[in-house]
């Protein structure tokens, strides 16, 4: 008992605060609703959080490096529209279905990467505040999507595309696999590589980083590019899920959810500190909260209220700790 207590005192409170919060929330949810712990419900939560969770992984790099990316939701819609156009185009051009799907996925990845790179270049070479750059591109990407689809939706012509979206190898939804795989890869990059160390250094104090012979611009550029790539992955997964892309609906409020997941996961809004796994926990926490609110019958319109309060609360707790 004593050993357990002293162990609890020794663990890095900041690092595990998000885990503890999630554990408590899970217990409360289980008590509130007998359905909560059912396998199907849990899988549902995981699937729901995966789409924004994947984006949040990239967002972790951006926020730790001292930036912000508000454009991810609109970017997801834009990238999704392009992916479906490529899918349908290549399918109609007589390509085999598998190849067409692969082309769509590749297009989404590439487009996401390019959009992220554009954000990053504007921030680093253009020397414009990240908030302004991504506020601008947020409007821009959404508008381009609406224009392309005439504010409607693009339906995929491939049934394989949609089947992939609802596939669940080993009973686990595909997006969840991808979330965990990417999280593991990015956590490794964040914690164990030079690039991860530099990202924290730049966010902690960019002047110190500059004087320490770190390429500050490249480091920040990479964070936005990684986020763009994550948006590409997320966008293609959500498009598969619906087998279509709604130009006005896809990705709405994703920036909110992604930033919230990062913050709840313990990453400092002022940069320099954070963890990738914390972000995954943050994303799941948001999912669990939504799920619980549904189960106890609270109006879905109030879910935003709760989410807002949780974000503000998380930052408030961060402030108290400092």
């Amino acid at each position, binding site marked *: 008992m004593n050993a357990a207590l002293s162990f609890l005192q020794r663990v890095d409170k900041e690092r595990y605060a998000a885990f503890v919060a999630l554990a408590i929330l899970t217990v409360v949810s289980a008590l509130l609703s007998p359905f909560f712990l059912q396998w199907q419900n849990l899988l549902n939560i995981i699937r729901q959080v995966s789409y924004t969770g994947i984006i949040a992984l990239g967002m972790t790099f951006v926020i730790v490096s001292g930036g912000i990316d508000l454009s991810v939701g609109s970017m997801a819609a834009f990238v999704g529209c392009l992916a479906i156009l490529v899918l349908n185009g290549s399918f109609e051009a007589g390509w085999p279905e598998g190849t067409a799907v692969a082309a769509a996925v590749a297009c989404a990845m590439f487009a996401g990467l390019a959009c992220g790179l554009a954000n990053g270049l504007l921030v680093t070479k253009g020397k414009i505040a990240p908030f302004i750059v991504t506020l601008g591109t947020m409007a821009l990407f959404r508008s381009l999507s609406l224009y392309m689809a005439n504010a409607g939706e693009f339906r995929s012509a491939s049934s394989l595309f949609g089947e992939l979206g609802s596939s669940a190898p080993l009973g686990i939804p595909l997006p969840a696999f991808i979330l965990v795989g990417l999280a593991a890869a990015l956590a490794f990059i964040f914690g*164990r*590589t*030079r*690039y991860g*160390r*530099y990202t*924290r*250094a730049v966010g*902690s*104090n960019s*002047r*110190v980083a*500059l*004087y*320490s*012979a*770190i*390429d500050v611009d490249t480091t920040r550029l990479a964070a936005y590019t990684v986020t763009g790539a994550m948006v590409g992955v997320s966008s293609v997964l959500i498009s598969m899920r619906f087998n279509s892309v709604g130009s006005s609906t896809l990705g709405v409020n994703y920036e909110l959810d992604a930033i919230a997941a990062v913050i709840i996961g313990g990453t400092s809004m002022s940069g*320099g*500190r954070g963890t990738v796994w914390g972000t995954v926990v943050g994303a799941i926490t948001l999912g669990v909260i939504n799920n619980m609110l549904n189960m106890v019958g609270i109006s879905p319109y109030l879910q935003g209220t709760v989410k807002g309060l949780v974000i503000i609360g998380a930052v408030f707790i961060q402030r108290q700790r400092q």
Partner: protein
Amino acid sequence: MTPPLFRVRRLRKEFAGNAVLRDVDAEIRRGEILGLIGENGAGKSTFMKILSGIYEPTSGTLELEGRPIAFDSPSDARRAGVSIVPQEFNLAKDLSVEENVFLGAELLKLRRVLDRTGMRVRTAQLLAELGANVSPQDRIEGLSAAQKQLVEVCKALAFDASLLILDEPTTMLTRREIDRLFALMRSLKARGMALVYVSHKLAEVKAICDRVMVLKDGELVREAPIAEIEPPEMARCMVGRELREIFPPKRKAVGPVVLEVRGLSSPGAFTDVSFTVREGEILGFAGLVGAGRTQIAEALMGLRPSSGVVRVGGKEARARDAKQAVRQGFGYLSEDRQGSGVLTGFGIAENMTLVSLRDYASLPFVIDRDKEVAKARTWRDRFGIKASNLAAPLESLSGGNQQKVFLAKTLDPGPRVVMVDEPTRGVDVAAKQEIYRFLAELAAKGAAVVLISSELEEIIGMCDRVVVMREGRIVGELEGNHVEEREIMYMATGLRTGANA
């Protein structure tokens, strides 16, 4: 007999059961400058913070003119006539000088409206008294460190203070500005004000103070009228060794030239600068603040555009960015540890390897943590850094230890040319002595060292050859016996130019 202005009795302060101030008795008299000295961690700041209402004492009493008094807050203390000029600037950078001087205590007319004219006039008057070349409407952001310091002094004087505490006020000032500050302190003293002067610079304490108190480990170990105590004895009381032993013996460098700079210029900073540094040599850069010394180091580090010729070991080495400069063998310890030196949120080991991280990659990008920690451990042992856990965040260390970490970080890539800029700013005597020893060892091992410092004592104690700069140009070079304070000051201030060797 009238009671002293201020008296403290058995003043004690504990943090979490740790006594940092142990039952100190002291009095501060009107018309007197009291010197307060001691190493970092001796309890000086705690003592001052209690006097100025920032801390409450754990036990003990304060008396103002014989009456017991307790301060609940700094503004409480300020109303009672205690003002402090802090070591770290506490200025809002987007506001003007006059707005800062009266910040939180604005003069009003018609009860609600700012009396801007009144504040401007008062600020202008104070600035003139200080001889500061600053206008009340200047924004803080555009001021030099020395000017900011003077604004802090103004701020403390804007109200009728009876006790003025100055915490290390001269670290950022040039000789001339220090002289002006001292003249001002003397005139305040003549008006009957009590002043407490806290400093590491013992010669200055000797020059300006009437009485000196030495704190060591929270205790008052010595109190004496200034006539009865000399700087070497002050140092001995503080740390138990003589001041002159603080510098390692000089050695004359005869090795080949490592760094050669020819006609280096950087627009707006310095013009046509040429010098060489030999293997094993410590070359001093003296001059007033703003003479362009730091900018030369920045240019060599690729942090500032420049034109001209730079060679290291005979090879072209003018760098476009810091990464390239590090590859070419430059290392730079900047003058601003917090602003451009170390990362407070990072661990100790992580800080040490920040510049040289490439060397710790086992695979191209993956950091070999064991190797990193092993190297950090050798630095810790070599520099005597007091840290048991190298993963602990840097801010858990004292200023002197943080500076050693910064030095380790600078030296870890193994630079051939080491440029150190104010390497002992704000560190205590013991740490200073160690840093001097490390620099001497570094030179002895064959590095070319450039020492930029505003502390002439340091330049004279460490360097066999000194380059003097003024207004962005090298105005002279001194060597051997000619390296002495008056000569350097004549050149730095423009009273004399030319070289002698």
